[in-house]
């Protein structure tokens, strides 16, 4: 049975009087330990879909099941408890960290919420362990986010999302706001965690190159719908849809073209 099962997700927003169908009838599955990439340009609905998977947004229709439970039915304390198993990494690293909280407090918050039996010393150890795992010095738990670089901030975000050993992480454009050289480092880190912790990823991105590097399967979104999906290789080497082909053609490689 797949770890994540999204069925018929739809969401409509009301933007200054107009109805915008951000997501229309989107369905997909993600197996345990698998990475599904959701690719699309701005307005494709990919971020909205990602948030509906975690029930951060209420779908207008459709369901999401994670690890057998219907997340879309949960609310209140039950939903909050379920969040131990499914977390999110955000696009803008600095914005996603509370500027007034030290790194250690930010990372240990999931432990306070979901493993209340741990005492402060045990939490501290877990925080230091995960800091090491994401490639940061243990002392960084005393720092404030503003003192760190973008790449380091994103590592904190990843640490926070991984500390409870969830089965499923939604990554919303995790490297788009970072410098090129840092992007590669973060992708490598994500790969390492993926295998070490047997994680399933929903990797949301607008960049096809990145996606080819990280995903097992790809779903291409355009104006709220999935227009193509398949294994990474098949989407890249044998795209069926016009839009996918346009997207592939527009992606700029770094092989110099003679002019």
């Amino acid at each position: 049975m797949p770890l994540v099962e999204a069925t018929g997700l739809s969401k409509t927003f009301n933007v200054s009087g107009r109805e915008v169908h951000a997501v229309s009838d989107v369905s997909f599955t993600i197996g345990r330990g698998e990475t599904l990439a959701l690719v699309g340009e701005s307005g494709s609905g990919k971020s909205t879909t990602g948030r509906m998977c975690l029930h951060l947004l209420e779908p207008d229709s459709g369901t999401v099941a994670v690890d057998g439970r219907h997340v879309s039915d949960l609310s209140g304390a039950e939903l909050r408890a379920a969040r131990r198993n499914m977390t999110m990494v955000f696009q803008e690293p600095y914005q996603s960290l509370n500027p007034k909280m030290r790194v250690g407090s930010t990372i240990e918050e999931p432990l306070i919420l979901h493993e209340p039996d741990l005492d402060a010393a045990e939490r501290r150890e877990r925080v230091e362990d995960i800091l090491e795992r994401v490639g940061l010095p243990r002392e960084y738990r005393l720092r404030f986010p503003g003192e760190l670089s973008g790449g380091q901030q994103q590592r904190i975000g990843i640490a926070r999302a991984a500390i409870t050993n969830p089965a499923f992480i939604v990554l919303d454009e995790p490297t788009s706001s970072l410098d090129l050289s840092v992007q590669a480092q973060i992708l490598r880190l994500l790969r390492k965690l993926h295998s070490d912790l047997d994680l399933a990823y929903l990797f949301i991105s607008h960049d096809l190159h990145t996606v080819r590097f990280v995903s097992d399967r790809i779903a291409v979104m355009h104006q709220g719908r999935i227009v193509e999906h398949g294994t990474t290789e098949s989407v890249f080497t044998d795209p069926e849809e016009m839009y996918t082909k346009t997207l592939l053609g527009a992606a700029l490689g770094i092989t110099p073209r003679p002019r």
Partner: protein
Amino acid sequence: MSAVTTFLRNRPGLGLGLLILVVILGASTFAPLPYDPVATDVSSTLKSPSWEHVFGTDRSGFDVFSRTIRAARVDLSLAVVGTLLSMVIGVPLGLLASTKNRWSDRLMRGLDTFQAFPLLVLAIAIVSLTGNNLKNVVVAIGLINTPRFMRLVRADALAVRESRYVEAAISLGASPARVLRRHVLPNVSGIVLVQATLTAANAIVVIAALSFVGIGVTPPTPSWGSMIRSGTQNIASGSWWISIFPGLAVVLAVWALNKIADGVQAGIGRSR
């Protein structure tokens, strides 16, 4: 420590404001005064400023200088306690009002009605109704300033709620109460501090106005407002010093607090 000194060095206004405030408070609490502020000396009434009486004396023979300094203790502490009261009530209510539900709308609507009254009139009314003592002055100051804090906190909290780190906290499973306590409140506190100093500055003026009309601080306890009032009768006959010096003291205290507020505001502006 060096971060604090750099901070202060870059903002001379803030440093000066703090210094003046500390000096005033310190002097009024600890400094030995040349004369007992509540002792009259019938032999030297209405004396103009001289070496003996730096600010002169008033009708009853009180030394104006000593009383001006001592009045700081009363006026400033009333202002501060009143401000704290309005913070203690206003900030939590403001946070609650920032949550989206029926109650918050009703609360804000009630607030509109309350704020429709001119604040000074309201303060006078409250004190007149409840009795003329210091405690009620503090309560009055507290009540009339609560709406200000509520609105400010609510507006800022609404903005903070839209931020990505609040969404992150929710995504981790934090309860709404925890989000308010751990994420919204700490990020709203900067603005609250600025507002507090401004409110205290305003409160000094209100207290002076109240004691000017005879409400609040009663003689012989010195208060800037009552001193100004007692001096008004003598201005026409040329004894200007009785009102002017306490008046200057009010201006100075308010200026100092405003400078502190500016400095704090610039400080938080930077870190945002």
